[in-house]
């Protein structure tokens, strides 16, 4: 498993003198969206964020109209925080690790389109409100009860296999790529792969296992795991290679064994 960052990059041999950025603008939540195109000089090794910073210095559209500087979120700039996620040339990904050379090589043109993720409330321009994902984590109780009135002592040992799978699940940075690319997610009718992956992470923990019913209950609501359509886009677009479909199907097995056929144990 490799993340995008580890892939050897191809060089753009004959770069254009200038590149265009077509950016979806929205003044505030609820306002109508429109597109504006900006042109900046080409530089080697530009990523989308450095291009946006260039645009911000002189926010004049290609038609010569002065406008407001585009707004976007960014923090770590190394694809581990997930906050700069946006839809770039139609595909959801982090803008910090989206190199302009690669985008131009892939599209064969000189224009890059930027839009905010469509499945979250659009606060302004490229900035979205992703707090829904935190609500989902609370719903599936994505934590382990450790604090008590007495010392619980050390937990049971975890097998290497389990530890590795849990590590892979723990890489989730709550960026929202899986939800944006999911054809089932939207309109609050599906909790989505992100929360299911985290529920699985804590269900696999020996102490977390003791409250597995709470997490499964969070996934058995009307917006629960049953709404997964198995398009599997989540695992394809995940920048951290979180084994999301495996987590969904393992949780399906937990539900089949513990919940659907649980009454056969009585």
């Amino acid at each position, binding site marked *: 498993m490799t993340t995008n960052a580890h892939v050897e990059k191809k060089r753009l041999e004959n770069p254009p003198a200038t590149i265009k950025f077509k950016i979806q603008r929205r003044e505030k939540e609820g306002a109508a969206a429109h597109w504006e195109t900006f042109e900046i000089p080409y530089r080697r090794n530009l990523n989308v964020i450095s291009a946006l910073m260039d645009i911000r210095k002189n926010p004049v559209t290609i038609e010569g109209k002065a406008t407001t500087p585009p707004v976007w979120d960014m923090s770590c700039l190394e694809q581990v925080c997930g906050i700069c996620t946006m839809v770039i040339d*139609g*595909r959801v990904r982090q803008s910090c690790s989206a190199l302009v050379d690669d985008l131009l090589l892939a599209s064969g043109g000189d224009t890059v389109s930027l839009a905010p993720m469509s499945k979250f409330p659009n606060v302004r321009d490229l900035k979205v409100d992703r707090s829904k994902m935190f609500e989902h984590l609370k719903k599936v109780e994505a934590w382990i009860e450790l604090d008590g009135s007495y010392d619980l002592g050390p937990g049971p040992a975890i097998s290497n296999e389990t530890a590795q799978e849990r590590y892979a699940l723990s890489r989730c940075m709550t960026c929202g790529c899986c939800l944006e*690319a999911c*054809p*089932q*997610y*939207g*309109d609050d*009718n599906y909790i989505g792969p992100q929360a299911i992956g985290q529920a699985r992470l804590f269900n696999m923990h020996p102490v977390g296992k003791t*409250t597995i*019913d*709470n997490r*499964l*209950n969070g996934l*058995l*609501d*009307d*917006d*629960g*795991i*049953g*709404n*997964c*359509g*198995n*398009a*599997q*886009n989540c695992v*394809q*677009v995940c920048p951290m290679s979180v084994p999301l*479909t*495996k987590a*969904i*199907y*393992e*949780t*399906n*097995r*937990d*539900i*089949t*064994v*513990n*919940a*659907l056929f*649980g009454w056969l144990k009585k």
Partner: protein
Amino acid sequence: MAIKFSNTFLLRKLHQITGIVPLGIFFFVHMFTNSKAMNGAANFDKAVKEIHDIPYLLLIEIFGIFLPLLFHSVYGVLISSEAKPNVLNYGYGRNWFYMLQRATGIFLFLFILFHLLNLRFGLIPGLTEVAVAGNADKAFSIVASDFQKTWVLIVYILGVVATAWHLAYGFFLFAVDWGIVIGEKAQKMTLAGCAALAVLLSVVGINAAFAFRSPCGLMPKALCEAPAAPAKAAPAGPTKF
């Protein structure tokens, strides 16, 4: 803490089960029966007669076929209406399969309606007015006369291929949705098996359709019985099983 199921979850599970158990089994039997047309009109008519003689036939038809079919198709259309397909931006194989499952589902909703009105009830204007149901002695000739029309044959071939894929991929979906198949390698193997099943069911179904136009359909004649010469028919020949 006790487990609580939501209605949506239970309906999804019921949708998956009805697709596999009553409807999947029914499709296998249906293709098997159709294939009897390869061995001639008398053979097919006899097969239809045998179905008519099944005890509790009406109850099996209502509770084993009609109600599961009604639920599976209506709820399936509802599920499809919730989809937000995005294959143009995310053109992964499984994403196409996701869309194809919904597309074949909606096509089959219309096709099965047509098929029932056409052959089960004989109500499609311009086609047979005699239903196959209740007329076992005329079953082959009813179907054969409709299948002489090329457009009817094409519609039925599309119906068979769509059903074969929808069912075979449905097995894959069932396997992952019930947590039977989990890992990526197991998924790949299951998918390959399902694709093979889809091809097999399509070939059998298409050949059975052609068998109503020429004996043995498109298969080599050596696979089928030689059609009995009309002059020295049944009485002298040994009983066939």
